């Protein structure tokens, strides 16, 4: 549920390669500003819809992001608004996010949880590294380490290691290929469980439209559509 934006869906959550403001929900050190909205249908279940609207702005070296992801099912509601702040200085970025996670079964059983993300990132020329601790103090917390490099001026790749609190560790790799100034293709793979993600982004000026799909070993693939605005 955390990786619900179109970009995160295509990248299997490798936020180090992401160019979507919506992924502030999975990384406190995105160093992006703009607006992102998305619609996701998890596992192609027509009864469940996930919507997101996320914004980020900067004040000199300080970036502030906030947004909300809302999941709706007839009998279940989940939403996760958050506030992020991170500071960038000479390639370093240090940030934290606070999430308020609400879920309710029908109207009777609403429950609030507060969770925190911490992250640090460093970028130098074509290389980058990101270490993040997500949803600290929840059972779904995870520690993620990601490294990235540029294979060429058109292709960036990344490798990630994820240590979830309650599941087995897994690896993931991702790639972004800039085929044309207007078209990018994104792909990723992870083990445990074995999943592929891919997407295509059409970009024109400050606008970017993206569609992505991500497979699952037992369930139908997840589809996602997003519209991003950069400023």
């Amino acid at each position, binding site marked *: 549920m955390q990786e619900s934006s179109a970009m995160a869906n295509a990248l299997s959550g490798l936020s180090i390669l992401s160019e979507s403001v919506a992924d502030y929900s999975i990384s406190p050190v995105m160093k992006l500003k703009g607006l992102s909205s998305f619609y996701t249908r998890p596992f192609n279940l027509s009864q469940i819809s996930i919507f997101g609207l996320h*914004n980020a702005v900067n004040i000199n070296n300080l970036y502030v992001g906030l947004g909300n992801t809302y999941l709706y099912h007839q009998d279940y509601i989940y939403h996760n608004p958050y506030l992020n702040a991170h500071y960038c200085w000479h390639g370093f970025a240090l940030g934290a996010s606070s999430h308020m996670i609400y879920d309710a079964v029908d109207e009777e059983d609403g429950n609030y949880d507060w969770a925190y993300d911490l992250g640090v990132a460093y970028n130098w020329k074509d290389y980058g590294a990101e270490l993040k601790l997500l949803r600290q103090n929840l059972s779904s917390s995870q520690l993620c380490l990601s490294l990235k490099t540029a294979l060429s001026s058109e292709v960036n790749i990344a490798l990630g290691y994820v240590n979830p609190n309650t599941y087995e560790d897994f690896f993931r790799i991702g790639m972004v290929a800039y085929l044309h100034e207007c078209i990018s293709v994104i792909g990723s793979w992870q083990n445990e469980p074995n999943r592929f993600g891919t997407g295509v982004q059409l970009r024109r000026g400050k606008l970017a439209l993206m569609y992505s799909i991500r497979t699952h070993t037992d369930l139908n693939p997840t589809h996602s559509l997003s519209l991003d605005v950069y400023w």
Partner: protein
Amino acid sequence: MKTALGLVFYLIVGLAFAQVVDDELLVIPELVKEDLADINIDAQYKEYDSVKGAFSISGYSSEVQYITSYIHLKKKDWQIRGGMRHENEFLANLQFKHRQSFVLGSFSPTWGNGLVLKRQSGNNRMKNPPHPSSFSPSGLGIDLQYNCWGLIALASQVERDVRLSEEMISFLPKTKQSYICTSTEQILAAGLYYRSDLIEAGSLYYYQLYDRAFSSSRADSLLQTVSTYLILNSTSNTLKAELAMHGKTPALKSEWCLQSGMFRNTWSYTRLLDYQRPAYASKAMLLNTLDNREEISVELQYKPLKALQFNFGTVINHRRGDINDPQWLSHSSFKATFKNSNLLIALKLKLIDREILTSIDSIYIHSKPLHLRFNLTADYNVDSNWRIECRAHYHQQEKAAALSNGSYWAQHIAYSSSGLNICGGFRVNSSANYKMLIYQNNDMGYEVLGHNNLQAEFELGYKWSLIEASMQIRQEVLNDKQTKLRFVITTVL
């Protein structure tokens, strides 16, 4: 000039609603719920001060349907202001004013710190008529000023809706409601005051009579009060105090304000021992309306940078009388605001602390549940046309058996260009077991949220020449899937 004024007016009216009270550090909507509609309308009238005429009409359609309209006309020394609301019945408040001296119709008289009439601010003591659904003094008001001296007088008679119990008034609503019974309220007041740059002082006699008795022993149908106030001004200090005497012990409300460079503080002390709140007095204490209590509040403001401001405030209300009343109540707030030409971010944290006394098996049980509230306001001007807004509230209320929490999250994207305004967004409220009150830009100034809900919202506005029209649609995605529609047409001359 007219166009510029009109533009400023439209901008401010749109923003001023719901922000007037929201900016006050220690206030929460539950404490001022009944006053919000009046405060909002007063803010709207203030925007009319600089124009010759204005007229607005707005309609609302949802589970209830109503229409409200406001008018302002000014020619030389005369001014007409008023509003009307039609829901199930027609309600109106209208005021004729000659200069600032004579007022006929509905008005809001002010005096001192608000122990007898509304709290005084500025030179004009006979303020605007309140919201059409609110009761107000109706009759004649006079405020004559000659050099440093002034004379204030008012005579009012109002037929007020009341709820009766054994032929006595058990409830006197502030707003016009359809109760079967009414009671005649008569008010007479006269006062003299002196005003200079350094000192201001005055004394007022106030008489209030209802033609029925009150069922509560704390209220009397005949109330006679003498109020005296004093205001001392220096370059950086202001001291205000008012004494109101109608029982054995005078009621006192005092305030000291210091402004020094980037620092500002306000201390206030209120002591009400034998006090009956007059019909149109301000709420003397923030946290309680009962007598036999005292309240101390402190507000500190520090602005270390041009764009950065910190506010801290606390208020404690303590029992001085009946053991059945709460022994003490306390609110504390902290607010950090960053504001430059493009960005506004305000974070507010409020702790609501109180001791609850419950009688169980003839034993009093004390409990101190934790209530806290968190508010976030964020606005960003992307460029001269685009703007994004976010509002978030989280309320945590600890009860004896279970938590009672609620949250509200709203995000909007707005575009404006050449008189066209388009705004879209959504609101999520998650308060399955708790009714949240939040400030809203509507007729009443607030909204009560219960249940879980998701609302999509769209607003379209256009301004041409002196007329502006806007329409707002809110569609509930969950629950009843109700559609709320609101339109506003405003013209400024």
